[in-house]
């Protein structure tokens, strides 16, 4: 059962690529109050980077829109929600298939695979033309 909420952070960023690093730093700073291991912090930073990059590269493509990041703590679990109001994903299953990309040679097609691999749970909701929300959870063991 989900424990009661013990802390929350909300952040709105424009979908500019320099904000990938800003999102990572903000979320890792928030999570650091739980005294996570370096590995756990890096797992979270990597997953956040993937989700935010998706908003920039795919959701808003050549436009600038807003990325809504909500982090909450429930005991030793961190819940991260990353939402955009971009183009949405027409086929989520396909988008989550490792190596599948619509963006050519420079994108590895691993974004969702990395989120799935480094977090304890991942859920994606998307509506075409409305946007995408990624929900992730990480349990922190602490040092």
């Amino acid at each position, binding site marked *: 059962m989900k424990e009661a909420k013990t802390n929350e952070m909300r952040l709105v960023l424009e979908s500019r690529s320099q904000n*990938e*690093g800003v999102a*990572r730093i903000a979320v890792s700073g928030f999570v650091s109050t739980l005294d996570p291991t370096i590995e756990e912090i890096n797992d979270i930073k990597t997953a956040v980077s993937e989700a935010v*990059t998706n908003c920039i590269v795919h959701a808003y493509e050549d436009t600038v829109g807003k990325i809504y990041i909500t982090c909450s703590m429930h005991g030793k679990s961190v819940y991260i929600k990353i939402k955009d109001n971009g183009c949405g994903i027409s086929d989520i299953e396909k988008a989550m298939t490792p190596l599948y990309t619509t963006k050519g*040679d*420079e994108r590895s097609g691993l974004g969702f*695979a*990395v989120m799935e691999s480094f977090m304890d749970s991942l859920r994606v909701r998307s509506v075409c033309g409305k946007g995408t929300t990624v929900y992730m959870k990480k349990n922190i063991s602490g040092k």
Partner: protein
Amino acid sequence: MPVKLNKEGTTLVAFLSGEIDHHSAIALREAVDGAIKLVKPERLEIDFGDVTFMDSSGVGFVMGRYKLVNFYGGTVVVKNASERMERMLSLSGIEKIALIEKRDKAV
């Protein structure tokens, strides 16, 4: 620029440093591709020893450089990737096209 480029005979070495994400990969790509086109190396070594963070953009970076180096008939070697980076690289099956050398234990 978080990349140092060194030509050693027919080998081109790219020492990357700092954080590699979609944002930083754009400049990295331009710098390294410029050198590849100039040198046409038989071997490109991409050294991740001083990289402090990498997401899947780093994997895309290696894949993209492989395509270009391979076009000139060369090979790609990944050096000093951390365990986490190797885990990400292996998700892509990149070891089938690039040689991954284990991290220096001395560091």
